[in-house]
């Protein structure tokens, strides 16, 4: 990675961190767990890295690729389960309000 790329990525990191800090201000306590669960699903974005690690050399099961497949399995469970569980919680929340 050259310095230029690193600096660009550093810009992205710092600005995204600021956005993250500003996004959440007043959250009612009932939403704490769903919000935690929803952002947990977003951290499953590692699935992108896992796909890239699993991607090359079809049929050839090197150790790096087996690690990639393990990552992909865990990341997929995290993403699918995370979004589904969050939706279930929010569904219940809506019914409660009515």
């Amino acid at each position, binding site marked *: *990675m050259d310095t230029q*790329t690193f600096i660009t*990525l550093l810009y*992205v990191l710092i600005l*995204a*961190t600021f*956005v*993250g800090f500003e*996004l*959440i201000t*007043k*959250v*009612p306590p009932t*939403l*704490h*767990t*769903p*919000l*935690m669960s*929803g*952002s*947990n*699903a*977003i*951290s*499953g*974005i*590692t*699935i*992108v*890295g*896992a*796909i890239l*690690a*699993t*991607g090359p*050399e*079809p*049929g050839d099961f*090197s*150790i*790096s*690729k087996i*690690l990639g*497949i393990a*990552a*992909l399995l865990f*990341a*997929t*469970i*995290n993403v*699918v*389960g*995370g*979004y*589904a*569980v969050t*939706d*279930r*919680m929010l569904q219940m929340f809506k019914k409660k309000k009515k």
Partner: protein
Amino acid sequence: MTNRELIIALGYLLASVLFILGIKLLGKPSTARRGNFYSAVGMLVAVGVTLMHQNILSWTEIFATVLVGTAIGWIAAKRVEMTQMPEMVALFNGFGGAASMFVATSEQWHVAIEQGGKPELITAITTVVSIIIGAITLTGSLIAYGKLSGKVSGKAIVFSGQHLLNLVLALAMVGAAVWSIQAPAHLLPLLLMLGIALLLGVLTVIPIGGADMPVVVSLLNSYSGIAACATGFVLNNQVLIIAGALVGASGLILTQIMCKAMNRSLVSVLLGGFGQTSGSG
């Protein structure tokens, strides 16, 4: 930049915007469900354009793994009782940490051991950061899951010299990490660092009482964001950095809000040993 690279980059941009909107809307009761939906669409877009990457050739392996993972995640999410939600979130969060740990290890293994190359310094540093935080998130979340579900005693497990032991282990872990950065092809420093990180995840969560667990899960959620972010630097991938930083930062704020709601300070929660007396969580 080829057309393919352009579409991937724009897809990641769209996904990032959807994640930001998603978290924003999740903070209000009336829009929360829509927010979760936006963020799920963002994830689908990110995955979709990643599959267009020129190095993605192992279709069978990818689709088989995603199919199994989807089935497990879906069934687990549908079967879990409403009262067991926090522990389910803890478990999923641990899996996210595991994913970051495995991706970074895979990358180091591929570059240093299989290709015999030496990763650049920035890549090497972010790799060990990603492995360490991912590993701590994994075992820490598993203990939190165990405590919330009653599989591990919910009581705070404290013993004398605990903080000193953690400090010594943390220093040893940093030492192993520096060693691993300098000798990326060697297994010993890599495994040593990984082992200590996994142990530290357990040791830092066991002294915290069951009532404080939601705060800990929220903090570990923030960690898994930071791990994803570090993985983004390893792979030079902007959507990982953006989504990871968003979760890392917003997770930290949410942790603070949750601490305030139960009249505790984050430091007192983390030092542990008080959880069983604080009653309601």
